[in-house]
């Protein structure tokens, strides 16, 4: 699920900078922060540091002791084709899943906004309900739909005279098949974000456009889409980070195998495999940090891109 991004709108917003002057210094505040701080330290900071340390050791799941091995894990990582292959799989999935996840959600929202209000309930249910399904339910259904022979997808292909496709067992189609499933499953979240943004566009904007003689298409391209730019930026950012975290559906739809010739093993899949299947906690920690670096890099890059656009 996507991580929420920013502060809520308070009843009467004021610039936060005005606050601290009126605070009375005391230690009571520390008590309020303490419970969260303890959990934060134990379940986030500690494992972060422990993982960094482990990446310089040969720590194993099946051995109590661990020895310092210097940069051995990092050197191995640099030369491990499986690391780069799975990182590429993650990036490829992000590239092929993000555009449809944004475009489909936008189309859904625009359509919902356009049609009669009494259909809204049905559309919101239909588009958003898949997002509420646990991932295992989604993969059970789609693995069954992709089944060769008696699956409904191949059934439809055959009904119109096309040949069957071995969706999940062909290395050329498996990642695309997982991306299609992901679009179905999570487009509903982006859809809600777009819907909220659309509802925030005042009606007089459209009326003004209509008076100027703009047709429905022009109203969409000249008014709606430009006004949604900030929302699109947010949706793309959230979606990129969510897609980079691919693991659950890829693992379940390939029965933990990574797919034919590992064509659907994302970088987190490789972390899982080297750490828990291969028992190598130290090495898997190093690969985790590589993934972390990629996520941070993408976030920073995006932040810069978007803030420049905003400035223009």
């Amino acid at each position, binding site marked *: 699920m996507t991580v*929420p991004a920013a502060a809520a709108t308070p009843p009467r917003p004021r610039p936060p900078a005005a*606050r601290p002057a009126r605070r009375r210094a005391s230690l009571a505040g520390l008590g*309020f922060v303490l419970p969260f*701080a303890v959990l934060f330290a134990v379940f986030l900071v500690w494992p*972060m540091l422990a993982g960094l340390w482990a990446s310089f050791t040969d720590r194993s799941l099946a051995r109590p002791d661990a020895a310092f091995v210097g940069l051995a894990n990092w050197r191995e990582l640099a030369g491990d084709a499986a690391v780069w292959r799975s990182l590429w799989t993650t990036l490829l999935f992000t590239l092929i899943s993000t555009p449809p996840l944004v475009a489909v959600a936008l189309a859904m929202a625009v359509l919902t906004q356009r049609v009669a209000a009494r259909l809204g309930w049905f559309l919101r249910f*239909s588009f958003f309900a898949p997002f509420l399904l646990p991932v295992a339910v989604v993969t059970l259904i789609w693995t069954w739909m992709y089944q060769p022979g008696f699956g409904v997808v191949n059934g439809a292909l055959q*009904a119109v005279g096309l040949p069957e496709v071995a969706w999940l067992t062909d290395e050329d189609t498996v990642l695309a098949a997982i991306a299609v499933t992901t679009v179905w499953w999570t487009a509903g979240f982006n859809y809600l974000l777009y819907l909220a943004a659309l509802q925030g566009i005042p009606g007089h904007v459209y009326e003004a456009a209509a008076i100027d003689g703009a047709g429905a298409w022009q109203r969409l391209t000249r008014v709606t889409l430009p006004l949604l730019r900030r929302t699109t930026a947010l949706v793309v950012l959230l979606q990129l980070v969510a897609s980079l975290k691919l693991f659950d559906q890829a693992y379940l739809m390939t029965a933990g195998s990574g797919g034919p010739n590992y064509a659907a093993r994302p970088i987190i899949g490789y972390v899982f495999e080297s750490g828990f299947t291969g028992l190598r906690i130290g090495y898997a920690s190093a690969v985790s940090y590589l993934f972390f670096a990629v996520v941070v890099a993408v976030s920073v890059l995006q932040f810069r891109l978007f803030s420049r656009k905003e400035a223009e």
Partner: protein
Amino acid sequence: MSATAPAVRRTVRRTPRRRRVTPVGAAATVSALVLAVLWLVPLAWAVLTSLKPEAETTAVPVRWLPLEPTFAAYRSILARGDLQQWLVNSVAVSTAVTVLTLVVCVLAAYGFAATAFPGRRALFALFLAGILVPPQVLIVPLFDQMTALGLVDTYWGVALPQVVAPVFVFVLTRFFEGIPRDYQEAARLDGAGHLRVLWSVVLPMSAPILAAVAIFTFVQAWNNFLWPFVATNDPALMTVPVGLGTVQGAYGIQYAQNMAAAVLGALPLIVVFLLFQRQVVRGVTDAGLK
């Protein structure tokens, strides 16, 4: 990352316009309905398969409606008993995560918004940085740590790491900072302690944002797969997504039963959504967007 988020206000509503049936409008309605029906196909296919006798599921060519509808698959799944246990676990874990998240995040946010203490800014910055850490990065070292603490295959081991959601501390802090201080100051002058101010001044004014955080957290915990999958191996402790995703039937793949399990596993949140659509939509949007 959060600074780029637009503050979309839902208060400004599109003024209703009189609509005539235009060709464009009709086309939009038809497209919307086609897309919506297409989107429901997988769910419909799952439900219809679950009502078939096992032998009918693999018939070629594909047949949509069961010839002899039966609840046999549901009976088999319920007789196994696993799913009921997983549902109980999911309810317990998601509820605990939601309650604990609310409590610790609200306390921390109040601490940051309404009090001053040494290191306040540094600590807030540290928590902010925590938002950047995807939980996926931590699975391996965290599992290692959990084995050391003896928390693998316990409810606490599943739940506690999910409570660390620095983003909600940030969201709530910004919200609390926006509440006019006059109310709090007045309460303080009346001799109320911080806890009292939080409880009787701040929280009542924050109901919508608290509901949004609660709904968002609950849905997230209910559907979380990776950490519960790593932290639980004993099927008696698994949540719905983990149990459905890992435990196999001894007789191999049986599609009607798989779909019956999928339908039962999907049902709780779908029912909640049907009953409280408006609140869920608002909760997810508010916590996700604003």
